[in-house]
């Protein structure tokens, strides 16, 4: 019988990705309900040293495949490694980050395992028997569907980065580290890597910001927003309108076709709050909205809504901060 809740802990260049810690956070929460263990999958090359970190972030067991075949991400070797672990140890739940790696690996694996997979989930719940209920947006964020996988195991899901709360680090935690060797079927390695090029992020990462100063169509000049952000030690983000207009970089875009953020404070200036935008920021801990239009949908999610002129409010903020 399948048992335990597993997380694929994505690493890039040996660095554990933030989404892995978010998944350990939700896995821990689910495991308290089902009374199961949290397992972490760590696959890559020269990554074993990171296994203890995953224990500190809540893994009871870390399954490590450290092999030079896994140096760069390529679908087939990664699928073979995870498939072997899952076939041997039979977890009941298997979570991936909904990143360009997770969304490549998880569907391939689900077809190999012939089990269900739910994409890009924003909420996970379970019952005492360990049945997982996965909620995800569909139709461009207009609708939310809750999906179950009642008769197949493992229950698989990719989870949107930035939505779940990160696990807290606790170095006193104890866990078991299990090394696994894979007998590769190299005849399936048809895709060859010619080169891998890292692209420099020219923009501050909005998903890591504590405070976001976000601008929408109602902001004609975005320069003051950068000043406000600097004074608040925050970062500037944007609605889709200003990205489409070429005023802001795509890396700053919040929403369905941009990034999901959950800063401690989200200050929305001149953003009306289309449902696609709200999908990307409504989990923020504290939301302030400034807009001249009293009926703007952004006010429905704001903790503090202010009907006022965004540019003038920013001008005053710069003076007073």
């Amino acid at each position, binding site marked *: 019988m399948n048992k335990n809740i597993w997380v694929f802990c994505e690493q*890039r260049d040996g660095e554990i990705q933030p989404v892995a810690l978010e998944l350990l956070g939700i896995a821990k929460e689910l495991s308290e309900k089902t009374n199961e263990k949290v397992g972490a999958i760590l696959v890559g090359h020269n990554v074993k040293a990171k296994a203890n970190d995953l224990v500190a972030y809540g893994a009871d067991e870390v399954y490590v495949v450290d092999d030079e075949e896994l140096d*760069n*991400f390529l679908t087939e070797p990664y699928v073979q490694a995870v498939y072997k672990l899952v076939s041997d140890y039979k977890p009941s739940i298997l979570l991936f980050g909904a*990143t360009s*790696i997770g969304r*490549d690996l*998880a*569907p*391939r694996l*689900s*077809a*190999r395992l*012939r*089990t269900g*997979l739910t*994409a890009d989930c924003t909420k996970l719940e379970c019952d005492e028997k360990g049945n997982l209920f996965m909620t995800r*947006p*569909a*139709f*461009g*964020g*207009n*609708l*939310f*569907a*809750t*999906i*179950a*996988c009642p008769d*197949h195991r493992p229950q698989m899901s990719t989870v949107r980065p930035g939505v779940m709360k990160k696990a807290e680090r606790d170095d006193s935690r104890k866990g078991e580290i299990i090394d696994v060797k894979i007998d590769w079927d190299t005849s399936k390695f*048809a*895709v060859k*890597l*010619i*080169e*891998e*090029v*890292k*692209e420099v992020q020219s923009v501050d990462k909005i998903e890591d910001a504590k405070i976001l100063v976000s601008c929408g169509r109602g902001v004609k000049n975005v320069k003051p927003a950068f000043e406000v952000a600097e004074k608040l030690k925050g970062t500037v983000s944007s609605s889709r309108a200003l990205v489409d207009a070429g005023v802001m970089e795509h890396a700053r875009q919040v929403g369905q076709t941009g990034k999901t953020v959950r800063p401690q*404070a989200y200050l929305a200036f001149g953003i009306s709050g289309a449902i696609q935008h709200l999908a990307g920021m*409504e989990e923020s801990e*504290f939301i302030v909205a*400034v807009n001249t239009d*009293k009926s703007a949908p952004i*006010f*429905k*999610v*704001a*903790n*503090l*809504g*202010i*009907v*006022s002129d965004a540019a*003038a*409010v920013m*001008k*005053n*903020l710069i003076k*007073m901060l």
Partner: protein
Amino acid sequence: MKIIVCIKQVPNTTEIKIDPVTNTLKRDGVPSIINPDDKSAIDVAIQLKEKHGAEVTVICMGPPQAENALREALAMGADNAYLLTDRAFAGSDTLATSTIVAAAIKKLGADVVLCGRQAIDGDTAQVGPQIAEHLGIPQITYAAAIDYNEERNSLIVKRQFEDRYQTLEVSGQCLVTVLSTLCKPRYMNVWDIVDQDSKEVGKITFADMDLDAKNIGLAGSPTKVQSTATKQFDKTIETLELDPEAAAKAIIDALSKRHLI
């Protein structure tokens, strides 16, 4: 080179509205389109055909009216089109859908399979990789550029990640999922619009393929939709009408109360 492009007909989600009374999607009158990523995939296939010579077949699973999407693909320059349609396919999740589409590809035969990265109605990005697994062929997802090397008989693909890209080479059969940013899909052209009228859109049903009924449709779908809901908001809301100075002060007070400044 035989290329099969898998497309989906989708409602134009940017035009979907919620009915405030029934709290359900208003789909009436919402136009159906070829999924944007898939349209790029059609274009890439036709580019490869123009540069290197290829036979381009477009397939689409869906109800009879999805034939319109295939007619549009023919008018863009595709050579053949097949509609995969059968009542037995209804209710398929991504795994069941990929099982059906893979069976059709097996029947038709292909060197290269192209899919869009994801569809705008479901946004799963799962069917492409699942088809590749069923066919037992390699996959490359998130393609930002594709080229064919005639000498080596291989595809060179730029694979996009959030923070990097890879250049990958694959020879032999493969499946590639493409990003809509890869190219700007061409419009239908006049000659092909005229021409497509004389072309048949083939139909492929359950009986035409090597499929086990227990792996398709509702019965063959491991995932089950439990419930759907439109967006609900339950925040404690305070909306104030303030002059800019008072507004700035209210924001600063709120942030300092939360120890953020």
